[in-house]
């Protein structure tokens, strides 16, 4: 089986599981399908020679962020309060809006990327840890440091927000 067929199968599975995230009624099922979607996206990264990003995607998204979501879902105990359905009008109009967005982007890209078959000469070592690390710590070292500040701010903010109010008043 050629890689083209494999990529088409994996891409359709990605879209199918992403649809299941939106369409499934129970939030925990949505989380599980989102993890499946992230695994499929990682497989697409591997197909495009971005091996390190595939591993990072699995570790950070499927491993850390999704576990955080599951944790919060379990903490909140939402079984009693069923989610109210959106009205048919809202569903229909958002379906039209989303489909319109899809068509507009596809139409905008149709004449540029989707027809051009010329690609840059491929360097196989693009997605390795070495090349990404070289770039990250030379050309993009300032954004790297700024993102660490962002992380500290987010951490402090999360701790402050999720604290009990009485402790904040003290």
């Amino acid at each position, binding site marked *: 089986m050629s*890689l083209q067929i494999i*990529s088409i199968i994996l891409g359709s599975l990605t879209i199918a599981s992403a649809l299941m995230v939106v369409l499934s009624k129970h939030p925990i099922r949505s989380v599980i399908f989102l993890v499946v979607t992230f695994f499929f996206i990682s497989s697409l990264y591997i197909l495009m020679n971005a091996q390190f990003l595939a591993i990072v995607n699995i570790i950070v998204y499927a491993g850390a*962020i999704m576990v*955080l979501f599951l944790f919060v879902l379990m903490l909140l105990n939402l079984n009693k309060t069923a989610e109210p359905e959106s009205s048919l009008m809202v569903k229909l109009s958002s379906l039209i809006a989303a489909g319109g967005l899809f068509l507009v*982007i596809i139409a905008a890209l149709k004449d540029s*990327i989707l027809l051009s078959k010329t*690609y840059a000469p491929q360097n196989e070592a693009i997605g390795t840890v070495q090349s990404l690390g070289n770039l990250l710590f030379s050309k993009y070292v300032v954004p790297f440091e700024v993102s660490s500040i962002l992380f500290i701010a987010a*951490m402090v*903010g999360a701790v402050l927000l999720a604290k009990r109010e009485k402790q904040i008043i003290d």
Partner: protein
Amino acid sequence: MTADVNNIGTSLDFFVIVAIALFVIGAFGVLTRKNMIVLLMCIELMLNSVNLLLVTFSKYHGAADAQVFVFFIVVVAAAEATVGLSILIMAYRNRKSIDIELFNKLKD
């Protein structure tokens, strides 16, 4: 095998379409769902579609810069998820629900 991997370039359009479809599905979820935690998950889905698009164009151009941007997007997504979830916990403590229809106090 390596020659095959390079031939994947002929189907990069398909990855672009998959990324756009993921983004649109996420937008549709944000518009229709009322559960706040599912909304946050749809936003994560949209961020991931952008990541997929960046990796596709990194493959297209044969340069690794776009893959570094993906790292920064992952950082922003992690920060957004932690802050968003803690806001969600605060909102749940006040309202005993995470239905976004109930969070309309500013409107009154």
